[in-house]
């Protein structure tokens, strides 16, 4: 048996023994997804046990080094762990921006002390992190951010406002981009700092969206304190960290492309919902839109497959993630418009149990953000034109 085969067998055995039966069922409600943090209330004893057992092996962050709370697994081993968990139907023990975003940033740009201090609590789900990037006047043009951090010797005093900070009201710490060099060219005066949210100078306010409640918050800094030892990377070089994380995020979105886009054909859904007469959907004009949308959806899935295969083969071009992000967002919006066409007036019931509180209508409205968040459609088109097509600047 090869080492990897041994690893697979051992992993399977361990999972069989340690994963509680409740955890092997599909996620049913939002609370089934464990985000951790000081405010977290476990939805069940099993959720807690599972987190503790996995964290003890470092398997909440399987490929991080062991000394920082990770599992120290190789790429191949991590893949096997993922496969075996899927095989068993095991839920993820812990999801968080700490794992997805801050961790990779610290691993690349953090000092050894910072890693030791911050990574293990992330791995154990003890500290929940928020992301503080966008501001009301710094959206697509993130580098124009204005939140100020003034040097006070051993700490900074932070003033300003962040927006779109997901779950900020449930988080303990925030990693934020702040302006430390007000006189420098805009990209050169930004730093990446870690701020404890448990202080009077930090407050949050949830944002209600057109689709209803949302995980998004506004976060306000009013003479908040950030220790200098919690500056990640060099002073005024925070843009490098941000760029690294944005690329990382975009790749995550692109590689999980299918998560972005629900590819189930609309035609059959419409046939069941609206009815068919003489073998044809009762609305023949809508039918044309549906079949075209389904074809585009299929082509989109093929593009995702092809790009993945190209990446594996080490061929193909960069900036693919912009191609997928752009098209996936627009297609998803189109798809939900069509879902609303299919559902007709019945989808309009906003608070009725019959529509599951307007589920489809809220999804429809929520998709409108797909082409705004994570880089707007306009920004993606700019990237494709500039980086792939190499069209000249104005």
């Amino acid at each position, binding site marked *: 048996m090869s080492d990897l085969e041994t690893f697979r067998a051992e992993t399977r055995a361990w999972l069989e023994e340690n994963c509680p039966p409740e955890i092997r069922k599909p996620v049913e409600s939002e609370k089934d997804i464990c985000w951790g943090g000081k405010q977290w209330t476990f939805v069940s004893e099993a959720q807690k046990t599972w987190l503790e057992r996995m964290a003890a092996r470092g398997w909440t962050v399987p490929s991080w080094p062991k000394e920082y709370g990770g599992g120290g697994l190789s790429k191949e081993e991590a893949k096997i762990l993922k496969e075996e968990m899927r095989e068993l139907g095991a839920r993820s023990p812990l999801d968080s921006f700490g794992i997805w975003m801050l961790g990779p940033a610290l691993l690349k740009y953090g000092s050894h002390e910072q890693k030791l201090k911050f990574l293990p609590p992330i791995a154990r789900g003890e500290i929940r992190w928020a992301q503080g990037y966008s501001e009301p006047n710094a959206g697509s043009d993130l580098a124009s951010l204005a939140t100020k951090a003034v040097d006070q010797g051993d700490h900074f005093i932070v003033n300003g406002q962040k927006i779109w900070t997901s779950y900020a009201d449930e988080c303990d710490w925030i990693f934020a981009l702040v302006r430390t060099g007000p006189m420098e060219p805009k990209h050169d005066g930004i730093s990446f700092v870690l701020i404890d949210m448990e202080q009077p100078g930090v407050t949050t306010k949830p944002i209600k969206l*057109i689709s209803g409640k949302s995980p998004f918050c506004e976060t306000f800094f009013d003479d908040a304190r950030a220790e200098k030892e919690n500056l990640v990377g060099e002073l005024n070089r925070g843009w490098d960290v941000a760029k690294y994380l944005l690329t990382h995020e975009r790749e995550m979105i692109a590689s999980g492309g299918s998560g972005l886009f629900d590819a189930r054909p609309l035609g059959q859904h419409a046939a069941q919902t609206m009815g068919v007469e003489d073998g044809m959907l009762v*609305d023949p004009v809508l039918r044309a839109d549906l079949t075209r949308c389904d074809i585009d959806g299929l082509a989109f899935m093929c593009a995702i497959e092809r790009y993945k295969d190209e990446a594996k083969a080490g061929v193909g071009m960069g900036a693919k993630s912009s191609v997928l992000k752009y098209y996936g967002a627009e297609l998803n919006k189109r798809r939900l418009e069509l879902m609303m066409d299919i559902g007709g*007036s019945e989808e309009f019931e906003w608070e*009725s149990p019959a529509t599951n509180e307007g589920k489809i209508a809220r999804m429809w409205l929520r998709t409108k953000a797909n082409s705004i968040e994570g880089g707007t459609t*306009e920004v993606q088109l700019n990237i494709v034109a500039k980086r792939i097509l190499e069209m000249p600047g104005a």
Partner: protein
Amino acid sequence: MPLVLNEEQEMLRDMARGYLTDKAPVTQLRKLRDTEDESGFSRDAWRDMAEMGWTGVLVGEDHGGVDMGFMAMGVIAEEMGRTLTASPFVSTAVMAATALRQAGGGAHDARWLPSIVAGEAVIALALDEGRKHDPAKTAMKAERHGNGFKLDGAKTFVADGHVADAMIVAARTAGAPGEEQGLTLFMVEKDAAGLKTERTMMVDSRNAAHVAFDGVEVTADAVLGEVDNGAVILDRALNAGRAALAAELSGSAQESFERTVDYLKERKQFGQVIGTFQALQHRCAHLFTELELARSIMMKALQTLDEAPEHAGHIVAAAKAKVSQVARLSANEAVQLHGGIGMTDEHEIGFFMKRIRVASEMLGDANYHADRLAKMQQY
């Protein structure tokens, strides 16, 4: 009649815009929503509108109306679309008034038209039975019962149904679902035994009702128009309602577009006002062109309703289809070009997207009317 507003209509528009912007703007709708107002519209504003003559815009002077015609009706509806004003204007002052006037001569018009004009009565049209509008599919039965009829069945998506003093109910007295003919219209008052109305809160913060008819008995006098031949009056009422919605949609679409262009002239990113970006300019210019076409065909539909209402079916269908499609484009572009802020409930632009969606679906969406037009032309 040329395809421009005359002086009287322009005055009406200025007055309507002044009143609505001042007394019934989008903030009113938000407040109605947040306070979970029972009526879902402002009774005070509705009384004001009655005083200004809007409730009687399609009612003859014999019943106290100002009888200004469809072009004037469209002016009011368009302005209401700009402010997203919630009111029973379309259900009551447009569709019910048209149906009653068309039926004419019986007792119903004398009974109801004056109180419509006075802003007292709200009358809803109970027609749709499924998720998609299609009058021919009406299945609800009205069976002969003594000298009158007994109604059994259910209606959905009845705008203003929960506050209606009476409903115009379409039920089948002949033929089978799928046939255009065989419908009869009944005036059913709100306190009829066996009538159950359940309000539903809608995505656009307006409301509509589910209405159940459980052996509702009505006399023969309740019939509006002729038995089995309700389609004649229903078509007129629907054409009026569709044209009103087209006007409303046109107003909402224009308003959301104008707000978006204003925003683009203000918002800065990358050190530039984003309205300078050519890609956005071209999208706005395209949308403006579409809005111009939509408004033109909408006005043509109103003009035709004034001049040759018996031939208005085709142009009204085309107008409802075109305006619905363009208004949706406008709403989508508005939210997208507002960026993140446009996604928040705090900003008003989302209200436009929601109302446009509902109004574009009401009385038949763009696909329904496109399909009808193709059928009218035998293909």
